[in-house]
């Protein structure tokens, strides 16, 4: 289920452009250090892990990709579109092409896990109620949330909350998903299971994923196509 035509048509993506590009971006707000610039490309279908310690700059990657923050230097392009230049209304619509898991989970505390998953489908598409319900039921099943779907976030375990939040990020079947520290507090089995589910799009093809992490557990590593180590705002190691 994709965003409605009226919702998505306002900012056309550049055909053939990679899902996400960071070009000479200052991640740490150091205008005086032109040697500390970050560049990276997330190709279609790739799972890229940006690894770094606290203060390394990986915290800024998600907010820059979503257009919450403007890069002080360089550019961030999502599907060829410089997101920071979009006005607020168009940026909101454009974000429906991305899935996003903020640090923590960003679930709405007064909604059940099911209603949290349903939120983007209800508000960012123009489908009929039955279609919306069908898609939500499918997501609830895919991410193994059925037994706990009626719980509120505060009643659920950390793993279930993360599961619901990642299901929500995949709700509109985006071609790119950005996950901020998605595996903190999860077992390695749960982490690999979640990554496996989120990297497959609705039609079974591979989805581009950018995840940030302090480190990468061995169980997750096979699903990752590239690991970029970030130190002091710079990509120091880029391994396929």
């Amino acid at each position, binding site marked *: 289920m994709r965003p409605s035509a009226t919702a998505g048509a306002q900012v056309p993506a550049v055909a053939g452009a990679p899902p996400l590009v960071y070009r000479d971006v200052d991640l740490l707000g150091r205008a005086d250090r032109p040697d500390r610039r970050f560049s990276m490309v997330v190709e279609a279908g790739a799972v890229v892990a940006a690894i770094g310690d606290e203060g390394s700059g990986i915290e800024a990657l998600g907010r820059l990709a979503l257009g919450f923050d403007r890069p002080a230097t360089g550019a961030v392009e999502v599907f060829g579109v410089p997101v920071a230049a979009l006005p607020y209304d168009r940026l909101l619509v454009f974000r429906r092409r991305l899935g996003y898991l903020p640090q*923590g989970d960003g679930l709405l505390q007064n909604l059940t896990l099911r209603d949290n998953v349903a*939120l983007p489908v209800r508000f960012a598409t123009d489908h009929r109620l039955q279609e919306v319900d069908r898609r939500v039921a499918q997501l609830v099943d895919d991410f193994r949330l059925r037994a706990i779907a009626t719980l509120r976030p505060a009643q659920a375990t950390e793993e279930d909350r993360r599961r619901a939040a990642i299901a929500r990020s995949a709700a509109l079947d985006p071609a790119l998903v950005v996950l901020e520290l998605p595996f903190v507090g999860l077992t390695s089995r749960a982490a690999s299971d979640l990554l496996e589910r989120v990297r497959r799009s609705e039609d079974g093809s591979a989805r581009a994923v950018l995840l940030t992490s302090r480190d990468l557990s061995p169980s997750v590593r096979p699903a990752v196509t590239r690991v970029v180590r970030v130190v002091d705002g710079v990509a120091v190691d880029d391994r396929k």
Partner: protein
Amino acid sequence: MTSAVAAIGRSGARQLSVLGGLARFVVRTVRASARLTRAGRWVTLRVLLNQIRFTALQAIGLVAFLAAILAFLVISQSIRQLGRLGALDSLGTIMVVAVIRELGPLLTALIVVSRSGTAIAAEMATNRVMGEVTALEAMGIDPYIYLVLPRMLGAIVSVASLMVLFDAVALVSGYVAAATSGMAFTRYTAIVLKTLSATDVWLTLAKGLFFGSAVAVFCSYHGLAVKAGPTEIPQAVTRGVVSTIVAIFILSALFVLVVT
């Protein structure tokens, strides 16, 4: 002297900036309503009904009780004083002008501010602090559609409905007060109806619209303005409630100027 003038200027600029922010806030909320999706309309309706249940239905007892007490006190005292002067016919003017036109809407709005305004401001501030507003924006959902619009509509419907209820209970309670002083039902009705006009009905609805909007807009605005963290939530609630009360009194005065 210069610093005093500068301080006044700074304060004035701050107030103007808040007013500008509020105006933008209202425009964005109204504009957002045009972008509701089909399923979004259902969710908004559900949230709206919840708001009306909490803001109007659960406040019926309190509003009716206060309306009854206020009207009883005002009419009892007025009958005693007016009776001495032989001006009992002015009872209708006191009932309509003082209770129904002015005190009723004011008291109703104050009840809604104290019950629901505080809840709206605290909820919005919590949404902001917990990162829920950012999460909504990240999903491409306008927080004005999801959070502000249903609360604004809910407050308008609730305040207008409660004002009508207040008026109805006040009229009945006024009669009870008049009857205990020996006034017949037909006389009381004739006196009140002589002063009551269609303008009062429109005025009640108009005040419901403006006062209800004020409750939702001021409380949402100050709630969503929270930035630093949970310790700011009580301050946001206080700011929201105080500014709403001031706005309601100013609006009330403006209504008097416009109507007269």
